[in-house]
C-alpha cells in the first residue's frame, strides 16, 4: 500500500528547512564517530617513547605490524579461530532455526524468544558461567569425576584456545540464529508446498529450495559471528590464559600495560578495516533485515 505513493523520481534534495531534523544526528555522528576516528587515525601515525607520545608522522606502527612475524601470526590465529567459531555457531544455530521455523506448530514465538534471551542477558555473566564450568573445580570436571571417567580434575578445559572457542561459540549462537530464522520464516509456505507437490522429499526440498533461499540469512549470521569472535578481547583475557593471546587482547594490552597507544591505534584500524570489509559483504550477499535492530 505504501508503494502507491512512492513510485516516483523526486528531486535529489528536499527543501533546506527539512534538514533541521538531521542536525542532532549529524552532530552525534561528528562528535562520537567521525572526529574520534580522525584522532585515532592520526594517533596511528605517531609513536610512543615510554610514557610520552611523539606526535611526529611515522609509518613505524604499520611497518612493525607487517614486518615482525608475531603480529600477523596472532592475527591469523584469531582469524582462524573466528572462522571455526562462526562455522560451529552456524552448525548449532541453523538446525535449531530450521526446527523452530519448520517443525513447530504452536509455541514458535516462545521458542524464538528463548533462543534470543541469552543474547540479551549479560555478556559478562555468560563468561563467568563458562569460567565456572570449565575450571579445575568447575562443573564439567565435577561431573566427570563424579561419573568416574577421570580421577583428577583436568586442566585442559580452561585457559586455552578451547575455552575461548567454546565461550565465543556460546556467545555468537544467538547472533547467527536471528538472521537465519528470519530468512527461513520468509520462505513462503506455498513454495514448500509446490516443491512437495512436484515430488521433492524433505531433504531435496531443503537442498534445492530452503538452503538457497536462506542463504542471505545464513551469510549474515555467519559474518556477524565471525566479526564478533574476531574482535573480542575479554574472553581471551579471561579464559585464554597464556595460550590465549588473540588479536583482541593484543590491541587491549597496548592500552594497558604496554602503553603503546599509537601501535594500538594502528592495530585497531587494521581490525576496523577487516571488520568493515567483511560486514560490507552482508550488504551484498546477506540479508539486511533480520537484524536485531529492526522489528
Amino acid at each position: 500500500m505504501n508503494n502507491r505513493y512512492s513510485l516516483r523520481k523526486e528531486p535529489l534534495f528536499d527543501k533546506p528547512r527539512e534538514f533541521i531534523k538531521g542536525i542532532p544526528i549529524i552532530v552525534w555522528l561528528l562528535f562520537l564517530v567521525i572526529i574520534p576516528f580522525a584522532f585515532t587515525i592520526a594517533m596511528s601515525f605517531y609513536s610512543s617513547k615510554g610514557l610520552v607520545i611523539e606526535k611526529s608522522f611515522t609509518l613505524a606502527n604499520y611497518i612493525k605490524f607487517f614486518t615482525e612475524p608475531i603480529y600477523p601470526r596472532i592475527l591469523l590465529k584469531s582469524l582462524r579461530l573466528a572462522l571455526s567459531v562462526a562455522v560451529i555457531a552456524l552448525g548449532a544455530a541453523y538446525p535449531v532455526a530450521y526446527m523452530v521455523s519448520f517443525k513447530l506448530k504452536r509455541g514458535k514465538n516462545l521458542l524464538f524468544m528463548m533462543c534470543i534471551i541469552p543474547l540479551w542477558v549479560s555478556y559478562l555473566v555468560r563468561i563467568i558461567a563458562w569460567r565456572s564450568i570449565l575450571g579445575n573445580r568447575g562443573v564439567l570436571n565435577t561431573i566427570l569425576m563424579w561419573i568416574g571417567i577421570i580421577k583428577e580434575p583436568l586442566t585442559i578445559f580452561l585457559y586455552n584456545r578451547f575455552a575461548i572457542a567454546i565461550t565465543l561459540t556460546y556467545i555468537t549462537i544467538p547472533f547467527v540464529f536471528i538472521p537465519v530464522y528470519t530468512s527461513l520464516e520468509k520462505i513462503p509456505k506455498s513454495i514448500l508446498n509446490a516443491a512437495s507437490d512436484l515430488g521433492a522429499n524433505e531433504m531435496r526440498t531443503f537442498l534445492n529450495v530452503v538452503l538457497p533461499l536462506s542463504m542471505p540469512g545464513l551469510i549474515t549470521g555467519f559474518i556477524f559471528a565471525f566479526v564478533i569472535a574476531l574482535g573480542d578481547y575479554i574472553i581471551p583475557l579471561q579464559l585464554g590464559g597464556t595460550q590465549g593471546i588473540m588479536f583482541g587482547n593484543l590491541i587491549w594490552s597496548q592500552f594497558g600495560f604496554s602503553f603503546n597507544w599509537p601501535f594500538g591505534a594502528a592495530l585497531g584500524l587494521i581490525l576496523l578495516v577487516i571488520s568493515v570489509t567483511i560486514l560490507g559483504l552482508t550488504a551484498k550477499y546477506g540479508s539486511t533485515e533480520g537484524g536485531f535492530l529492526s522489528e
Partner: protein
Amino acid sequence: MDSHEVAIELQNVTKVFGDVIAVKDFSVKIRKGEFFSLLGPSGCGKTTTLRMIAGLENPTEGRILLEGKDVTGVPAYRRNVNTVFQDYALFPHMNVKKNIYFPLKMKKISMAEAEPKIKSVLSLVNMGGFEYRLPQQLSGGQRQRIALARSLVNEPAALLLDEPLGALDFKLRVAMQKVLKDIQRNVGITFVYVTHDQTEAMTMSDRIAVMNNGVVHQIGSPEEIYNYPSSPFVASFIGDMNFLRGVLISREKRMGVVDLSGEKVFSEKCAEELRPGDEVLFCVRAEKVLLNRKRSGSKNVLKARVQRVVFRGNDYEITCLLKGQEIRAIVAAANWNSSLKEGADIVVEFKPEDIILYPISGEKEVIKYSVEAV
C-alpha cells in the same frame, strides 16, 4: 460553464517526476455538485492528479483553482478539500468520535460545538452509535464509512476519493457504490473519484475523464464515452470492443465506407483524419455484433463461421471467423438458438452507428481522434 458553478478547475496541469511525465496538460472545469471520475489503468496519472487537487503534490506546470481561487502551491492543510484514502487512514490510536473530531479540532472548534456535527455526519453514513469504537474493531466497510464521515464533517468544497472501494469484496462494493452516490446527491457535494474500474465509473459518474500514461484521452458523460470514444484506448478500455483491420474506400463527413477483407461495410463514425486508402482500425462492440437476425434492412451483412461458443450464465460469448479476422459477439441467453453452434455458418450484421473507424497510427500512443457526431 458559469464561474460560480465551477468547484474545481485545472488549467494545463502537468506533473513531471524526473524524466517521467505523470500528468500531461490536464485542463478541466468540474461543476459544483458533480460526480466526476478519473478513470484509467494503474500508473495513468489519476491518483497523481487527485493528490495535486488535494495539495499533497504540486504541479510542475499549470494552475489549480478551487471555487475560483488559485490554490496552486497552497499546502493541503489550508485547502478546503478532503480526501478519502484507499486504506482509509483512520488514526488507530483514536476512537471513531475522536477521528471525526480531528478536522474540526484543527479548525479550533470546541468539542461542545462539534458534537452535533459529528452526530449528524455519523447518521449520514449510517454509523450512529459507533462513536466509541476503535478502528481496529470495525470491518472494512465500516471503516470506509467512518473515513467518509471524517472527510465530510468539515463541509469541504469537494471530496476527493482515491479508489475507496478497492479493498472491498464485490457485493459490498456494489452496495457501497449506491451509498456513495446517494450521499453525494443528498449532500450535494462535488466528488472527484479515482478508479480503474470502468463499470464503477460508468455507474456512478456524471462525467468521466479517461486517462492513460498521463494523458487525458477524453472527458465526457458515460453515454458519450461509450458511444463516441475519442481514441482506440478509450474504446478498448470501456466494455468489450472488437478491433479489426480494414481499408477506407470513401468517406463523406462522418460517414465512411470500409473494405473489410473484401466486403463493403458502412460506418457513421469515421475519424476526421482518415483519407480514402488509409488503413483503418475497425471497431465494434461485442454486444453490438448481431448474429443471424431476420433481415432488418441493414446495409452491413456479412457471412461468418462460428468458432467457439462459451456459455457465461447471463449470456453467450460467441467467437466467429469473419473473412479471416476474429470477432466476438455477445448474445443474451434468451436470444440464443441452436443455429449458433460451433462450426455453423452464420450471418453477421452491424448497424452503421455502431462501427467506429480510427487510423492505425505508427506510434503506440494514439492521442485524440474525434468521432463525435457532427
